[in-house]
């Protein structure tokens, strides 16, 4: 039985194609599903449910134009129309991944950090400290002790960030709980394998504790600002032609469409879903 993954689409989301593509490459049967098909509209009833899916991805974009806070209106819509389904989906062991705008939506929905199973907004992703939208590649360091199922086997990787509101903030008590339970899944590195320690641009947004992504206590819900689908193949990396040339000199090559490190997160998700089937 194949793993089915649902990727949200519509209302300004814009990473649905490549996210679904990465999931397909990772072995899932991925579908882009319009939010209206899940929630219905004023005139039409829903035509889709989360039943039958094992992975739900909140992909990147500018849902509702990011007006009134990034991810806020998407979270409001889903809370209103899909709350029960989401609870059931989580209860049966479904995996949820939120990327960039999707991460912002997850924290506004309260699916992250979901301390003690509570759906409440206890962390936030604020406007970048540098004051502007940034597209740049960053180093990510994974937390070895994290229960996160998506980062298994990864220690460090490069990924692009592309956001204006990615600064992770929480009250000190919340932050310490998140830290102590290993829920910080990925942090911004300094490019040399050590944490960025808040320095721009290695930490591109001023996130507390260099936090780039967190998971819930079970490790099945994961959100991050960087884009793993932005490095699903090798030729997305800015140093691709350099790495390829080095490989060629060694008598080899680097195929442009070979898997990039970001794909590992999707492969892990599919594997975890398979294990649970």
């Amino acid at each position: 039985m194949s793993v089915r993954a649902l990727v949200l689409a519509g209302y300004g989301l814009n990473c649905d194609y490549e996210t679904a593509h990465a999931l397909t490459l990772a072995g899932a049967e991925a579908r882009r599903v319009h939010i209206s098909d899940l929630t219905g509209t004023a005139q039409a009833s829903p035509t889709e449910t989360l039943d039958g899916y094992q992975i739900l991805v909140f992909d990147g974009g500018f849902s509702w134009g990011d007006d009134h806070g990034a991810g806020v209106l998407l979270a409001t819509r889903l809370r209103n129309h899909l709350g029960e389904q989401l609870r059931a989906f989580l209860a049966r062991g479904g995996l949820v991944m939120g990327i960039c705008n999707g991460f912002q939506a997850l924290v506004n929905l309260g699916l992250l950090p979901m301390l003690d199973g509570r759906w409440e907004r206890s962390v936030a992703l604020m406007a970048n400290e540098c004051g502007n939208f940034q597209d740049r590649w960053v180093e990510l360091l994974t937390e070895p002790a994290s229960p996160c199922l998506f980062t298994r086997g990864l220690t460090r990787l490069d990924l692009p960030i592309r956001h204006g509101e990615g600064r992770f903030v929480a009250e000190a008590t919340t932050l310490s709980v998140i830290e102590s339970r290993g829920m910080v899944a990925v942090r911004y590195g300094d490019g040399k394998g050590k944490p960025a320690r808040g320095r721009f641009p290695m930490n591109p947004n001023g996130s507390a504790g260099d936090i780039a992504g967190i998971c819930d206590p079970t490790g099945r819900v994961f959100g991050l600002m960087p884009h793993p689908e932005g490095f699903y193949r090798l030729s997305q990396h800015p140093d691709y032609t350099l790495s390829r040339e080095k490989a060629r000199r060694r008598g080899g090559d680097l195929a442009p469409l070979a898997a990039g490190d970001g794909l590992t997160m999707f492969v892990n998700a599919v594997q975890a879903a398979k294990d649970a089937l």
Partner: protein
Amino acid sequence: MAERLEIGLRPELYDPAGRGLVAKARAYLGYGLERVRVLRVLTFDAGLSAEELERVRVEIFTNPVTEVSSFAPLAETVLPDFDLALWVGFRPGVRDNEGATALEAMSDVLGRSFGAGAAVYCSRLYLIKAPRLNTEQARELCAELLANPIVQSWRVIPRAEWDPAQGVGIVLPRVELKHVPTVLTLPVPGDLELNRLSAERNLFLNPADVPVIRAYFNDPAVRASRAAAGLAEPTDVELEYVSQARSDHCNHNTFNGRFFYKDMLSGESAEVDNLFKRCIKGPTEQLAAERGWVVSVLWDNAGVARLDEAHNYAITAETHNSPSNMEAYGGAITGIVGVYRDPMGTGLGSRLVAGLWGFCVGPRDYDGDLKPALHPRRLLDGIIEGVRDGGNKSGIPTALGLLNFDQRYLGKCLVFVGAVGVMPHTVAGAPSHLKKTSPGELIFMCGGRVGADGIHGVTASSAGYSENTPAGHVQIGDPYTQKKMHDFLLEARDRGLIPYITDNGGGGLSSSIGESCRYSPGAEVDLKKVPLKYDGLDPWQIWVSESQERMTVAVRPVDAEAFLRLADKHAVEATAIGRYTGDGKLKLTHGEKVCAYVDVEFLEKGFPQWEFEAHWLPPAARGLAEPVLAEAADLSGLLADLLDTPNLCSRAWINRQYDHEVQGTSLIKPFVGRHRDVPSEAAVMLPVLTGRAGLAMAQVLLTEYGDIDTYHMVAASVEEGFRRVVAVGGDPAQVGGVDNFCWPSIQYDPQGNPDGRYKAAQLVRACWALRDACLALGVPLLSGKDSMYVDGKLKGRHGLAQRVSGPPTMMFTATAPVPDLKRLQTLEPKLAGDLLYVLGQTRDELGGGSLYNLLGFTGANAPATEFEQSLKTCRALSAALDAGLAASACVVSRGGLGYALARMVMASGLGMELDLDRLPAPPGLTPLKKLFSESTGRLVVTVAPQCAAKFESLLEGVSWARMGRVKAGGRLLATAGGASVLDLKSGQMRKAFTRRFGGMI
């Protein structure tokens, strides 16, 4: 009863927006602000109950972790010791995107709809602690940094006048036109009356067109058929329609004109009947016939060419100069969002995959006497932000761009925006690049609503900028609405629901329906059915409004229900406003009232061709000569100075704000190298994720060569575009081009435009070069646009106004498929020990170049392009990339070999050692000229030593030399005559390269 909700960050949290204002106030105005906090203000005019208000406050508008909010003033909570409160909000009728989404979310949460007049207005309140800032200075802060009076209004409230209970009060920027829509009949008994009417109504009719227009309405047969429809004299709707359709913007009267060209030195003359036909259409049709990959050109909203065995790509580029010049942010966001509708409305519709930009502005640090509408620094900030929001929120990678400073752009800035889409060869069983309307099909308007905004945009851009330019045509684009529409239309296309689609851009419905009804032919439209933003618009306004984010789609009646269901799913408004007919008439009604009845083809025939005298003087006769330069003692210092010039230094901060990687298609980014800040030769994308073909895109702008000869400028631009796409792996046999001309007025006028005849000659020569270059290199022009009135009237000292004409400018965009991704290459050398080659001849051609520019000279020797040589060189490189022999390829362009080598060193961190004596060049060319000549057709290539023999075997017929080697250590060393003439470390170069803008974010 309206209510005001204020929302702010918790006082203990850092406020980047506030900090940003503190920094800008200091940098731009020299004002010291101690602290700033920014509040978001939502004013609800929607009849909410107290319970509902509280619910939306908590559930939607307040983040409990980071924000506080209140229906009472928050000022004293977030900044108790503020000295000033500045409120900034939109003027009535200006698009308020946040207000619109607020209403949408409220409707969803509260589970109820709102009445037609319900609205939420979004504004900002800036609380400032600055004890020494007076009210006058605070007003300046508003006018210079926070607001633009064209779209926004503001209030400055000193603490002493602050009402703690009411705060800023309630401001409701409702549009209340209090006007009953009417249709006016406008009798025009003579040409004089029509000319006068044209002036009164800002129709900008060409006096030569006036008799033709009158003759049509006086034609007895026309009068008879109009009488049957209930009309006699022309209506305001009809005359406005004529004005739109005949404008230079829509009709390209200049390019279709007749030019009487004369070389004033030799006396030789030539008559060019129609620049477009001779220099653009003719060569492109010839090339298209020869090459199977040109799919659809010269008629649709964008040109279409083959990408691979299953997909085509559509490309176009245009400018949005006049609106950006007045309201930089609004103009630029409207520009980028607007150009995206062109590929969307090409063929049966394409999916957007890339955006391109180019900005030409006055010097960022301009401190002269002229007073442009916006200072170049502020203008540039606004333009950058507009393209940022428009591009990012559209979810389309902003692949590439360029920025050029020139004082002559103070009169009017240039904002180029380009768009690329992809479409499968066939959709729902039909060829995707073809479309037509048929009688009986419904006319749907989709997307945004119509307001008074954008009226007379087309005609205003067909005129220079002056104080009387109507400001009403400035708009603020809404990428969110358009993104939903894009997704909707693609799904409708794939289901075969769309036989015809086009965008509503310049001219609005008058243009989209006026053009689309030529196929059926004929249409009937009820303007009363067009959804409006507010009541009170006259039918003519509805017909010509350029309100954004709208597409016109033909739908078969049988498909209408499915089309509407899809629109609902995507939350897009779609309304049937009429139908296509087959009677050859365009009939407009407003309810029952007939307001226009004209023949569909009326605007296509009988109008006189525009005529221009074009007087050319060759550079030497204009007194241009080469400067007399001794050899420089310190070429290293000169190169470092060049790296610091505004037009060559790093501008990575701009593209950093632009998402160039969304859609997962990125292959070569706008910047390359270790620090990711060296501009790449071209961008490459993988437009179809499951495909195998890349698409390379490059842009070229070589304005200064035109100061010597626009022929050389355009020839060099096309050749460079060609070379750039080949350098990254593009196929030289499949290069397409897009030309964007931006020219000052060329109509001679002894008082108003005394050098108009020379500017006209510059245009003729530019077009000749375009024709020659395209034919020689085999580059069909897939698309192109012209913007002909790049002039401004600026006030200077003592109130003395002067005309400032922009320099003749052509932006050239080149595209080429990368048939196999193994061919991809970037400019930075990869490994120490590699051999360094220069391909192509270097000649004494520094005229109009970056070095002369730095030194304050124009010179006379602009680079003259040898197309055949360039073609050989590019084909050789292409073969080398195919065989994996070239480890890097860098284009020599502005700044010459010196700048190319510097980019290679800065990007790689590796060094280079080379001997300038080996350079293919005529004898006696000095090291200075070898380093800074801008001769076209050249490339620097690095090659692994073991590949050298194979690589050299490909270079038959190419000028080339093995110049030296790539070294470890990041040092650029050049010798000449056995002596060192250049010695610069990568760090020194980077310092110069990033000094000016490197710290900007």
